[in-house]
């Protein structure tokens, strides 16, 4: 595959760059007829030829004409076209007027097919690359946060190299993957998550989409609904995000572009507002011996901080006073440099763009960071008359140093820092190692790792090498008939090294593993298309095609425990070694067709069909089919063409679509029972057994997603205001779920197509071009989305499905029939009918809240999300800021539960001197009581409260000042004496502050994994704010 690509590239290089000698040059500037602003990117075409050019950043153009009789056609999206005869002129300046009604806006739809926006009977959102490159994120997709209605992006608190969760129009599968299909330049891209943290810890291994350099992205199309994504068949259940990378196509002549951004991340320590009045100790007394400090390292139930001399965990006597915020002391200010340089060129026959990018990040956890280098080449060429080739290839090399450990405490520096009492300075724990090379333990709790040991002695690094490439050929057989073929590959390998070193307190002899993960996806398709008028009133734009997709995954693991020579960190140097190997390969073939008809260009009807054949559903002697047919139909009616509408309505389109798609084809090899080798034999005998813990189901099929959608798209008041509304209702049936079996059957479960979910939602986008003068422009945009997911069926008995449990063991994320997707379910207070809390009074007088059993305490997925972007430009200045918000979801805060139990939370301050007054209902009598919890019993009282999950499930609502950029275009005049053609410098900021936040001490966006169990928080990386500067120059 790679070889083939290389050959194609070579041929291209030989053919490319043949300039046609021109006879005369015409130049000029194209401006807006009203505002006089220049129009960059407008098109100039010599009529009747293929010779064309486009305007540069300043609206200027140059074009060669071969005869004086030539006529130039000027056009720009959203403007009325104009034609002017050259007649010997060498300068033609022209003003274009905005078109009163909608114009042909071309959008990229499924399979890369460009279509007239008004013909689409579904919602599609296209954003330009600067949406993600203006303020660059290490994971570019996070740049879309809050920008697209119905696209819910959650960046996790897992570090620079972490993953994101992207959900479009709600979760469609109970336990399967819910993230969209990513298509990059027509090529499906792997987005596997390489490991994430769970109840008992772990790290976020990053995902596939994070490899893409934000500077490379020209545009992103989001196919939200089934009708839009239908041509992707069984892969489209969760929507599709199509990324088009930059090419040299719009470049005029040779150009160089350099962009640089520097972003600092600083821990937002003010968010964590713990008490600073009482210090380490127990029963209201500070430690009197080192042993006491060592035994109760995280207990903030000591005395009032008074500056007296108190012994610490290390035996050193220090003042008993607040030492300042340990988050600021432990975490570094992270710095991320992203530098991209690109060269590009284009002429009538060919274009190219080549770029090199380097991303260097030193993350907030000391000794951790990320480096990503991207090499990207994009070539386009007219090979012969009517035959065009475009190819692109990217090589991405990513080194991650020490992915931080999250959630549970072992090896997790975030935990160890967050739990320290107010008088303990984390820097006293530095260095993390003793002289003999073992961990410098800070307490008797071996599972709470010295944070410096976790940061500097643990190793968790990986290197990812990735190639994404594709080539496509298009042949225009006739004016109205084309054939195109495309083939591409996404291939990567990840080498991971994890070391818990010799001397680690909870694992004295240490352990390690080396893992190599390989992935490849090869995708090819071919299609022929027709685009012609059938009669005066009818025309069609249709295609049929076929495609083939192969994916291979391979994992090799070498692991060992108990280092023999303490400081020799190689698997060979361990006592117990083992190997693991996994391999899977799957193929899918498809044929598809899309048939669009229009009547007088105001009623459009599109019908699509796709049939997928699955290797994962194929087995000898199988009686059920291994393929399935997926269809969709959609229509759009241009109301302003069909009816006479008031003048202020420039454009109005009604759209409706219905689709029957699918998702979640089973994993390979899951149809039949198989046997594998177990362990490494026993005393010379080999061992084997049944590999399946789940009873295979030969009749499994992908689940179905049926969706209906309606929408209205309008432009009003001469283009000043646009409104786009969408309503959808989708239903997942036959979702693949696990059916619990009695263990006496020998298996824990079987799998079957039994799950059912519905999602209903509403999306709105209002955008304005409200003020538009020569010097000033204000373009606000507001998007809003509401989605409510409901679990209709879970399995044959409709029992709950547990998606994930919090480390505190008293709360989990569950699917409960009749409830929203993924509710928070955990321990609660017992209450009277009036809602008063019932207590049992202990013999020592301490009230103990009665266990009310497990209850549904909230929902992990917020139903409301919105974003407001305001962009301004004044002369050479521009400014843009984004505020986004989510409402209606809840989060269980393990950090707050722990902080209450440890006496760290501010709520525990009350009654430290005189006792805490507690009111409630006495379980024994059923009558109200008032009890005073003595100061020495507060730890017991709050310790019990900390086990009641209900107390720590809080609203995750927030309004966040997400992003700001203030830019300045250095005037061309100032650049005249330099070789530069344009230059822009911007100040950027991200996640600067919350305008509103419901939950104390933690960031409401602090998930530790991008899996389906959302709504749990437990010692991830602390929240950060980012600020920096970016520079973009062209010459």
């Amino acid at each position: 595959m790679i070889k083939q690509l290389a050959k194609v590239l070579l041929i291209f290089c030989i053919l490319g760059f043949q300039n046609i000698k021109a006879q005369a040059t015409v130049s000029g500037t194209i401006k807006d007829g009203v505002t006089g602003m220049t129009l960059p990117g407008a098109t100039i075409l010599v009529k009747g030829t293929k010779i064309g050019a486009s305007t540069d950043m300043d609206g200027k153009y140059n074009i060669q004409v071969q005869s004086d009789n030539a006529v130039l056609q000027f056009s720009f999206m959203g403007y009325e076209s104009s034609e002017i005869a050259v007649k010997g002129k060498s300068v033609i300046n022209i003003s274009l007027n905005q078109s009163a009604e909608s114009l042909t806006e071309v959008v990229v739809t499924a399979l890369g097919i460009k279509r007239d926006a008004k013909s689409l009977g579904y919602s599609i959102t296209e954003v330009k690359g600067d949406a993600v490159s203006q303020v660059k994120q290490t994971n570019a997709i996070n740049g879309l946060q809050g920008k697209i209605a119905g696209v819910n992006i959650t960046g996790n608190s897992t570090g620079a190299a972490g993953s994101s969760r992207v959900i479009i129009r709600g979760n469609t599968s109970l336990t399967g993957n819910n993230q969209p299909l990513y298509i990059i330049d027509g090529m499906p891209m792997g987005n596997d998550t390489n490991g994430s943290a769970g109840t008992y810890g772990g790290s976020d291994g990053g995902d596939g989409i994070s490899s893409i350099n934000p500077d490379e992205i020209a545009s992103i199309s989001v196919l939200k609904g089934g009708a839009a994504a239908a041509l992707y068949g069984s892969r489209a259940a969760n929507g599709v995000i199509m990324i088009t990378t930059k090419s040299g196509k719009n470049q005029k002549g040779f150009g160089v572009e350099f962009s640089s951004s520097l972003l600092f991340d600083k821990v937002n320590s003010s968010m964590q507002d713990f008490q600073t009045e009482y210090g380490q100790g127990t029963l209201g007394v500070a430690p009197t011996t080192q042993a006491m400090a060592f035994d109760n390292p995280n207990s903030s139930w000591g005395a009032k901080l008074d500056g007296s001399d108190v012994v610490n965990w290390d035996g050193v006597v220090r003042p008993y006073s607040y030492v300042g915020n340990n988050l600021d002391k432990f975490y570094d200010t992270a710095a991320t440099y992203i530098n991209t340089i690109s060269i590009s060129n284009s002429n009538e026959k060919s274009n190219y763009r080549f770029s090199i990018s380097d991303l260097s990040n030193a993350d907030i956890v000391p000794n951790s960071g990320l480096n990503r280098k991207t090499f990207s080449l994009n070539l386009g060429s007219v090979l012969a008359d009517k035959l065009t080739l475009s190819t692109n290839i990217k090589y991405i090399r990513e080194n991650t140093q020490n992915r931080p450990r999250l959630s549970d405490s072992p090896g997790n520096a975030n935990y160890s820092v967050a739990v320290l009492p107010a008088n303990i300075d984390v820097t006293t724990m530095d260095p993390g190692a003793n002289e003999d090379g073992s961990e410098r333990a800070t307490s008797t709790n071996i599972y709470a790792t010295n944070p410096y040991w976790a940061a500097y002695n643990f190793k968790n690094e990986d290197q990812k090498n990735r190639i994404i490439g594709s080539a496509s050929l298009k042949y225009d057989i006739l004016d109205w008939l084309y054939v195109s073929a495309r083939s591409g590959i996404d291939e990567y390998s990840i080498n991971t090294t994890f070391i818990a070193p010799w001397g680690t307190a909870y694992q004295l002899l240490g352990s390690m593993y080396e893992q190599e993960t390989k992935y490849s996806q090869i995708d090819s398709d071919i299609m022929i298309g027709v685009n012609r008028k059938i009669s005066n009133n009818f025309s069609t734009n249709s295609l049929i095609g076929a495609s083939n997709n192969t994916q291979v995954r391979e994992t090799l693991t070498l692991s060992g425990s108990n280092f023999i020579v303490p400081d020799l960190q190689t698997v060979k140097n361990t006592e117990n070694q083992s190997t693991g190997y996994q391999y899977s390969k799957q193929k899918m073939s498809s044929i598809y067709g899309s048939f669009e008809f229009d009547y007088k260009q105001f009623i459009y009807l599109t019908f699509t069909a796709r049939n997928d054949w699955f290797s994962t559903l194929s087995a000898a002697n199988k009686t059920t089919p291994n393929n399935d047919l997926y269809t969709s139909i959609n229509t759009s009616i241009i109301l302003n063409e069909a009816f006479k509408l008031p003048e202020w309505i420039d454009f109005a389109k009604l759209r409706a679509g219905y689709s029957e798609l699918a998702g979640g084809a089973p994993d390979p090899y899951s149809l039949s029972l198989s046997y594998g080798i177990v362990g490494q034999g026993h005393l010379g005998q080999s061992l084997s057994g049944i590999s399946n813990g789940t009873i295979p189901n030969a009749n499994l099929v992908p689940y179905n997603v049926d969706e209906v959608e309606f929408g209205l798209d309008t432009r009003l008041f001469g283009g000043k205001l646009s409104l786009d509304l969408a309503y959808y209702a989708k239903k997942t049936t036959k979702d693949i779920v696990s059916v619990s079996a009695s263990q006496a059957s020998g298996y824990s479960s079987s799998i079957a197509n039994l799950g059912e979910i519905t999602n209903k939602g509403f999306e709105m986008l209002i955008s304005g071009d409200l003020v538009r003068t020569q010097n000033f422009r204000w373009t606000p945009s507001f998007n809003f989305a509401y989605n409510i997911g409901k679990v209709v069926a879970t399995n044959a008995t409709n029992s709950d499905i547990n998606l994930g449990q919090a480390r505190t063991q008293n709360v989990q994320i569950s699917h409960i029939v009749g409830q929203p997707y993924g509710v928070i379910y955990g321990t609660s207070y017992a209450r009277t009918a009036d809602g008063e809390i019932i207590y049992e009074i202990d013999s020592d007088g301490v009230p103990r809240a009665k266990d009310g059993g497990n209850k549904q305490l909230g929902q992990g997925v917020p139903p409301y999300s919105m974003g407001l972007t305001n962009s301004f430009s004044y002369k050479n200045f521009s400014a843009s800021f984004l505020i986004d918000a989510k409402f209606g979801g809840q989060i269980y805060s393990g950090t707050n539960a722990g902080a209450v139990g440890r006496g760290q939370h501010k709520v525990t301050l009350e009654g430290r001197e005189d006792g805490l007054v507690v009111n409630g209902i006495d379980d024994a009598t059923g009558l109200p009581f008032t009890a005073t919890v003595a100061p020495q019993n507060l730890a017991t009282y709050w310790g019990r409260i900390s086990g009641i999950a209900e107390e720590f499930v809080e609203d995750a609502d927030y309004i966040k000042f997400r992003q700001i950029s203030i830019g300045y275009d250095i005037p061309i005049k100032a650049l005249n004496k330099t070789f530069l053609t344009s230059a822009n410098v911007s100040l950027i900021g991200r996640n600067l502050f919350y305008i509103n936040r419901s939950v104390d001490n933690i960031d409401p966006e602090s998930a530790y994994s991008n899996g389906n169990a959302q709504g749990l928080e437990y010692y991830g990386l602390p929240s950060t704010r980012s600020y920096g500067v970016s520079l973009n120059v062209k010459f």
Partner: protein
Amino acid sequence: MKKVIFKIMLLLLVLTSCDNGYEELNVDPTKSSQIDAKSKFTAAQLRMSGERYEAWRANLIYQSTMMQHIATTASYWSGDKYFWNKDYASSLWDRYYTGPIKAIEDILVQLEEEEQPTEMIAIARIQRVVMFQRLTDVYGDIPYSEAGKGYLDGNLTPKYDLQSDIYADLLKELEESAAVLSTGTSEWGDADLLFKGDQAKWKRYANSMMLRLALRMIKVDAAASQAWATKAIEGGVMTSNSDIAYIQHSAGPEGINKNGNGEAFSADSNPRLSKTFVDFLSDDPRLPILGARRSDKSTVVANLKGLPNGLDSDLLKAATGELNTDAYAEPNRAIITGEDAPMFFQTYAEVEFMLAESAFRWGLAGGNVEAHYNAGVTAAMKYLSIYGTAATISDAQIQLYLTTKPFVAANALQMIGNQYWAATFLNEYETFANWRRTGFPALVPVNYPGNETNGTIPRRLTYATSEQVVNPINYAAAIAAQGPDILTTRVWWDKL
């Protein structure tokens, strides 16, 4: 033009004729659709021996403490104080059905399909009996006839069979299997970790198991008990310590190789020898082999003190002034708690004690009760050397013991029962079952505040709680037949 279109259409069809080779592709190259039964059998035996999970919970935390071999102040050792931890109680269930039972049912089907020699099938059937006997003795009525066949029969919710029916079938299985076996080496060969395929030993093991099951029924069906005991003894039971059914473990490289009890001891420093057990072992050469003082590993007999059952650290302090349990004896970590220790399923000593009982009750096995008793004690002391040479007890020591604590015919059943209890230390499944049958030793229950059984020693462990959700109809039927799913309900053969 039309030709071009036609060609393209043809190309499309070729590209997508669509699922060629898909059936072959969807076969995992790292797995096999079938595998040699021998390696499956070896793995099934190791799974039967068990892993840390149920060895820790069912065997040690529950049964060893209820049987007062072990005592501890740690509150999570539920059996010491008769608490009810449902997850611990069901741990054998949780592991056995999805482990050895699933494996042996699969192996039996394969052996039949491949028309393997009948002796191989007979040995696998005996092995299956051993597994189910352990399960039914712990829980009573259990899924048996339909168990482990989730894939084979598609039955996700197997019914519970009556223990009386299970026993009848297990005995029939043993009888039929023993009849097939003769002498020589089975095709299983070295893949058989118990006897390296020695058919004669398997035959004696089958008959010894038959004797165990026969005596188990003494309270509910004395006639059947006698009949099966007679049949077993006539068929030929174990005759020496070289007939012992055990598996030798190794300390790695992976968990499956390790002795589950040993793994639990590696992870848990709380267990001590019970005062009841240490007191019984006074003047017994086994004491310094089985126990050592926690604080300094001393095996000097004078230093070996047993910890009373039913204490927490407050009660311990109140009763003895001790702040912790370091002064008490723990299972001797130098000899018997290794991850590479052997795991015993049935010993020759147990067989001799059963012969002694059969002689006492029915005059079977030659009728000499004392001879069988003495042979049992001797074997019980001798076999410990399988743990290693440090566990060697000399003939002189044994003789001295038998002289100091001679057999008293008047107390025959009690003496036999007590010795059986001492000989099955660490095989607590058997200890618990035999104690329920015989009532020996006469253990004094503890009565810790808030215990689950009203201060009586539990009579069974409880089913997996998941059964109430995933197999509710059969679970309800089982409770209707056997009684409530609690610790004090008696299983069929334990009915008074």
